[in-house]
């Protein structure tokens, strides 16, 4: 199934709802009055774009003169266009440009880091890259076992220690091995942490420093994994992980559910960080490049 097919299928229920929110008021071609603008704004809020961004898009729509009126389909198209315009500059795939390219994966607990790593490894391997994983989540019970199973399924080597071990020294060891064994991509998992836990964030900063010891440019990418069901707190996550770990890009997971991940729009407007990929399922193939037009279309309900 195509990416769009999957996304649309996942979003179909909620998309319909959003589409109904935005429209369903007007039959035929009518002016874009306050009632319809209100409905659009609420539809956007219900998709987690946040009140501020929703109000901005509403204003932008209100400024445009639809002298002859506009029908529902037209409204959806204009909304999709506005959303896509915000997202277009941040849709950048993750490119492998050096060897070894060290990718550090961070995020709050349960956002889907480990599964995302498996999917990334699978994709890079399919592209002919030599991939190595590092089981840096030494905190959560069975996190190492989970990543080992994935490494096995994908068919890539893994550097792992004991649960409760020092994540920084494991990461150091992994970078060393990646250099020695000339792998192309090293992906390092980390324990999930809430961004307001100062101690755990310090630990992350240390991990990052240690990785830079063997190669000052490493980690070359720091990916923040965001759960699509997360609301406005995602902005706080981006901000704090950005400060502590120098996040270079975002991956959004769980877009196959009823969540629409609208805070990506808010995040794109505010931080401008690249959105590398989105997760649309639990399988290894379910990681897809981020396509702003299609995402915006699914969000606004122009997909049919």
């Amino acid at each position, binding site marked *: 199934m195509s990416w769009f097919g999957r996304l649309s299928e996942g979003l179909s229920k909620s998309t319909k709802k959003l589409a109904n929110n935005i429209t369903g008021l007007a039959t035929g071609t009518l002016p874009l009055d306050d009632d319809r603008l209100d409905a659009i704004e609420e539809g956007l809020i219900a998709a987690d774009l946040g009140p501020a961004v929703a109000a901005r898009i509403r204003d932008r729509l209100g400024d445009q003169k639809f002298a002859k009126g506009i029908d529902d389909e037209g409204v959806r198209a204009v909304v999709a266009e506005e959303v896509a315009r915000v997202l277009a500059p941040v849709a950048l795939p993750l490119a492998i440009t050096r060897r070894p390219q060290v990718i550090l994966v961070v995020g709050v607990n349960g956002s889907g880091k480990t599964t995302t790593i498996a999917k990334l490894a699978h994709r890079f391997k399919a592209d002919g890259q030599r991939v190595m994983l590092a089981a840096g989540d030494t905190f959560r019970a069975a996190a190492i076992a989970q990543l080992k199973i994935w490494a096995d399924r994908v068919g890539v080597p893994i550097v792992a220690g004991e649960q409760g071990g020092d994540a920084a020294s494991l990461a150091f060891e992994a970078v060393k091995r990646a250099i020695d064994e000339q792998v192309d991509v090293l992906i390092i998992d980390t324990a999930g942490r809430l961004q307001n836990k100062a101690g755990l964030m310090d630990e992350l900063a240390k991990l990052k420093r240690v990785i830079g010891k063997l190669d000052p440019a490493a980690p070359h990418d720091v990916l923040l994994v965001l759960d699509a069901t997360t609301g406005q707190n995602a902005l706080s996550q981006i901000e704090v992980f950005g400060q502590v770990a120098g996040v270079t890009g975002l991956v959004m997971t769980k877009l196959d*559910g009823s969540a629409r991940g609208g805070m990506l729009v808010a995040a794109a407007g505010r931080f401008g960080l690249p959105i590398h990929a989105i997760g649309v399922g639990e399988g290894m193939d379910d990681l897809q490049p981020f396509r702003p037009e299609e995402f915006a279309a699914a969000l606004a309900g122009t997909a049919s």
Partner: protein
Amino acid sequence: MFDSLSERLGGIFDRLRGRGALTEIDVRAAMREVRVALLEADVALPVVKDFIEAATQRAIGAEVIKSVTPGQMVVKIVNDCLIELLAGGDELPPLKINVTPPAVIMMVGLQGSGKTTSTAKLAGWLGTRERKKVMMASLDVARPAAQEQLRVLGEQTGIATLPIIAGQSPVQIAERARQAARLQGFDVVLLDTAGRLGVDEALMAEMAAIAGATSPDEILLVVDSLTGQDAVNVAGAFKARVPLTGVILTRMDGDARGGAALSMRHVTGTPIRFAGTGEKLDALEAFDANRVAGRILGMGDIVGLVEKAAANFEAEQAEKMAEKLAKGQFDMDDLRQQLAQMKKMGGLSGLAAMMPGMGAAKKAMDNGAINPKLLDRMEAIILSMTAKERAKPEILTAKRKIRIANGSGTTVQDVNKLLKMHQEMANAMKRLRKMGGIKGMMKMLSGQGGLLGGGPGPEGAGPEAGGAIDMGALGRMFGRPGLGNLPPGFNKFGRK
């Protein structure tokens, strides 16, 4: 984003000061701000709409109590409505665990919501608080190593887990768990199910089949408090397939405003039983509607802040401090101790995020106007003083100040700023004594009936000309540790 609602409402109501009852026009204007505050807190839109309507009806015509502003009155009414809704009004019935054993508790939720950790926490809670013999079983055959994770957690907490047999279906495991629990004399068996999406028909049907086969006494929905607008869809999807009996909100130790709590309560109609508040396996608390209401409204988590302060404040230090305070002394060493406490609590930005009315300070910090290293620097200045200087800061001459500035790598202005702050704090402490000690302070801060917005906003919390925040206010916060577990010294002080 952290601006408190009462501050915002203040603007609207400034011109109304002194009027009698709240009029419909005023209330509707205020409710627009409340609406945005709720949406920013991730309360789902349909829930916001219902809530605003109900709160508006209640607020119109309400008398504005003397000495509060209309804005504060609206906040109080909204806050009361929120608490009512979150707490559900009636007395919370106990968990149904006193049935013919084994009582079956089934945990359901999305992937990554924290089911497995919550299962272990709940098992521990049932074991220690309710003195039940508990067994856990993982029915998660989808996520790699999920069963292993629960087994390890069981080992860590000393709770029995059902032995893993590969290749069994979730329904088979559930039935085996119930049987094993019955035969081995367990009181409660906890079933940890796989995470699933509301739109995944196969997995939702499987969940319904498990519930059908084991007829659980409690089915608890585990929800991440970071959840956004999707909360209504999630709650609706699960409620449609299994008879939910309660909710556990996880990651309440994060900095999300937690609007999902309101959405969950509203959509499921079942009580929110517990809040997960940390990574440790005993970090599970009874859900506190008062606290969450304040947080959703963006009025800061005052109680949380205070409890954190209490937890970090070593009893012995508190004792000493209380004695000094009682005598009206507050020297540089005391200030340094307070700074160290603040650092333990997550530094300035952590504190600012928790405190109401500190939005400006937080913003200033984010913009770099306030250096988050401020605490370190202040500490360095104090450490560069002699013991005598610390005990009696008034002996500091210009010469001494230059020496201190050089010693701490700061400037004389910095030293002066610190001294001024110390003076303010010392004054605040004196005021505190006059006001009847800790108890008076508590009253002023929290107000009666949850009028949180009224008191605590530290005036001038924004960055002062010199870039220092009102440390007097911070100091005052520390004079109020713990509503529940006061360190011994402060108990004494409170009675003074």
